[in-house]
């Protein structure tokens, strides 16, 4: 899932579907809603199809892949929307080096406002230097 997220983020969200993702970088949409939020429904579609066909086939592996996408979506929401972007104050002052590292890396990703020249497209795994930065300090 992490690999797929990295790929989709780097080549689709910052590619063909930049039109939906750009307001997550430049905050050009007013109110709490971002066009970027359409991705939730886009990712819901394969989850629905997999859970449905998996259920019809006696809950085979397709069902669990669909379920995994759903849970990844929930994890994404908790870590990305709530923790990193602080849609409400939660764990804002954490000292956990892993959390600090992924937050720092994602902020680095947001330093680039344009479609091109991005970095740190991962979500739960980011370049090693960010982990080193915080794990070293934690010691």
């Amino acid at each position: 899932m992490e690999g797929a997220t990295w790929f989709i983020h780097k080549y689709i969200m910052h590619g063909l579907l930049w039109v939906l993702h750009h307001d997550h970088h430049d905050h050009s949409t007013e109110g709490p809603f971002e066009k970027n939020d359409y991705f939730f429904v886009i990712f819901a579609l394969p989850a629905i199809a997999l859970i449905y066909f998996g259920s019809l086939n006696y809950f085979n592996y397709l069902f669990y892949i669909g379920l995994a996408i759903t849970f990844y979506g929930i994890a994404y929401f908790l870590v990305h929307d709530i923790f990193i972007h602080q849609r409400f104050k939660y764990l804002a002052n954490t000292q956990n080096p892993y959390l600090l590292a992924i937050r720092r890396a994602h902020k680095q990703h947001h330093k680039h406002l344009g479609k091109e020249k991005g970095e740190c497209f991962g979500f739960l795994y980011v370049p090693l230097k960010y982990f080193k930065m915080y794990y070293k300090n934690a010691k």
Partner: protein
Amino acid sequence: MKPYTYLLINLLTISVCFIFSFDKKIQFNKHFPAFLKASVLVAIPFIAWDIWFTAHQVWWFNTAYTTGLILLGLPIEEWLFFICIPFSCVFTYFCLDKFFNLRWLSAFNNIIVFVSVIVCVVVALLHHDKAYTFVTAIATATTLIYLHFMVRAPWIGQASFVFAILMLGFFPVNGVLTGAGLDSPIVNYNPKNFLNIRMLTIPIEDAVYGYTQFLLNIYLFKIFQKPADNCEK
């Protein structure tokens, strides 16, 4: 007394909220016109749905608990249901929104819509042969997609939170309607047309149905409120 049971449920549901509407700190009475417009508009499709389902015996009413006045197949109490229940729900939302800052709950809009749409669409696909389950799931998914992506309503998280609190009232009211404490239920469901998953006596579809009805009432209520009174915008 028995024929007044359903009528009493309606009146008890609305009475406390109605009296407190005139409280100086609440003043919900100023919003009665907005509420009436909203609830009547939402009632139209919901009553049409109700008439259709009653005609096809997806559900039916035990007339031993109603006064006997029937309009288009529905007891008069069922018509009143579409004003009385939304009244107490919108009133509760109005008060909680007025006295507490619940805006931070907008952070949950995405996840509520994401999970609900997945669950509703999967359930609708798997149970397309069960009328109540299918129509409720489709109505809920459509309402959430419309409110989140087209209206961009910032209050979905807030309304969902209030609805969770409203469960405290939902259980006794719907509980009695579906037979809790009575010899037989007031509203009866054809077992072929729903999931047969009951929370105590209440079919799970009822809660989802109530959620959609509530969301639509809040949506229209906010539109009809005078702009200056609408704290949301």
